[in-house]
């Protein structure tokens, strides 16, 4: 049996994404670089196969997932969870994702509204979790995103979220193009002075 086949069987039979570390633990008779190569071959194989599912890196592990383009067929027999997010839930989730660790009052300041209900719903859905208490007066709870968040949103890790700078750049496209014409004369590099940048906590 090839190593790729062994890895495929492990990922196939697991009920959650399997990480490279887990694979190395399970396959102690193989070296880590071998496992990594075989895994990447497996990923490429499934990608080139153009099948109904592929091997995806989510939440720090590997998992077989269907292609999103096949949604309309899959839902015919799979009971779908009602994954519906209100605007307020998404905003709150975005703030927690980008600003974690974050307290409720920080989220409420950013959104300008009470977030108690939304936070409770997100906690119930296990998309966020309580990381602990902040060492300031009142010792408020601090929130962060969970593994389920990465799995649900199909993210490899938090770093694969688009940065806020990139998001703003998307929005600024027409503005940007206008400016480029002017810049031909001045020779300045295009930069937006109003941009506020945030770095994700490592």
């Amino acid at each position, binding site marked *: 049996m090839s190593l790729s086949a062994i890895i495929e069987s492990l990922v196939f039979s697991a009920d959650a994404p399997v990480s490279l570390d887990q694979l190395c633990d399970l396959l102690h008779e193989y070296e880590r670089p071998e496992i990594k190569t075989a895994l990447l071959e497996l990923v490429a194989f499934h990608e080139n196969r153009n099948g109904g599912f592929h091997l995806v890196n989510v939440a720090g592990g590997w998992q077989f997932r269907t292609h999103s383009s096949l949604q309309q067929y899959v839902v015919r027999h799979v009971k779908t969870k009602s*994954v519906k997010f209100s605007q307020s839930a998404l905003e709150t989730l975005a703030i927690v994702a980008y600003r974690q660790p974050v307290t409720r009052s920080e989220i409420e300041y950013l959104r300008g509204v009470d977030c108690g209900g939304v936070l409770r719903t997100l906690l119930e859905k296990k998309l966020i979790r309580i990381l602990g208490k902040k060492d300031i007066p009142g010792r408020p709870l601090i929130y962060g995103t969970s593994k389920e968040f990465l799995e649900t949103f*199909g993210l490899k890790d938090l770093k694969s979220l688009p940065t806020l700078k990139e998001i703003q750049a998307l929005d600024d496209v027409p503005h940007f193009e206008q400016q480029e014409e002017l810049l031909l004369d001045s020779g300045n590099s295009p930069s937006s002075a109003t941009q506020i940048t945030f770095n994700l906590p490592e």
Partner: protein
Amino acid sequence: MCPMNGQQEENLLLIDGFQEAYHVRLDKFDGPLDLLLHLIKKNELDICDIPIADITSQYLEYIRLMKNLNLDVAGDFLLMASTLLQIKSAMLLPRNEDNPEDEDETDPRAELIRRLLEYQQYKEAGMLMGARALLGREIFTRSYPEAELLAANQEEGPLELELFDLVDAFRSLLARIPVESFHEVAAADALSIADSINEILALLQERDMIEFDDLVRDDFTRERVIVTFLALLELCRLRMIRIFQNTHQGGIRFVPAVVEETGDDIVATV
């Protein structure tokens, strides 16, 4: 908020025409910052140079409309209204000419502008996140067969139940009982939850455990079933019974939650 009777009447007249149009829109605003951003976009204004007087009056107009439409105006909206008014009045004050270097610092709008810009970013980030292909919506994984896992769990004894399982059981029970096609004119038995509670407690004293299906006989009327169910919920709330399910999808069972000696005290307080 001070009542402005004359103006309110005027607004009511105005609203008659706009009610439909505004009603749909107002639901969309997700807080005062969202409303402000909407007003800025609608008027094609630059966030960094908001004409506070205009925006404040438009903002207050929306709040008045919300109130007149009987929508709950959350305190957050009122807080922002007072912030706007405060900024507006601060802008009317003459600038301190002696101190030109901290001109940016003294712009009363600076804080609000910063919050708006920040909020806008997270709003967009949230929209982008919602547009992703989500697990369970667009993307699916193989569902793991849980039968074996459940078999392994069964030896661990009864599972504690979620309230929703109880409600499900109740719904299937109601479905079993035919809808009566006639109305009784004669006064029916007076149904009370207290009676039903006593009945269940009496049953529980006889035996340690009752099955959900034992509690409700098929000849019960819907009202009787509902009262029994409410009694069960009340007993749960008072923590006098515990609900169990022996297997997944199995029958739901009730056991007394209190030990004998404290049981009497609680019954007395019901």
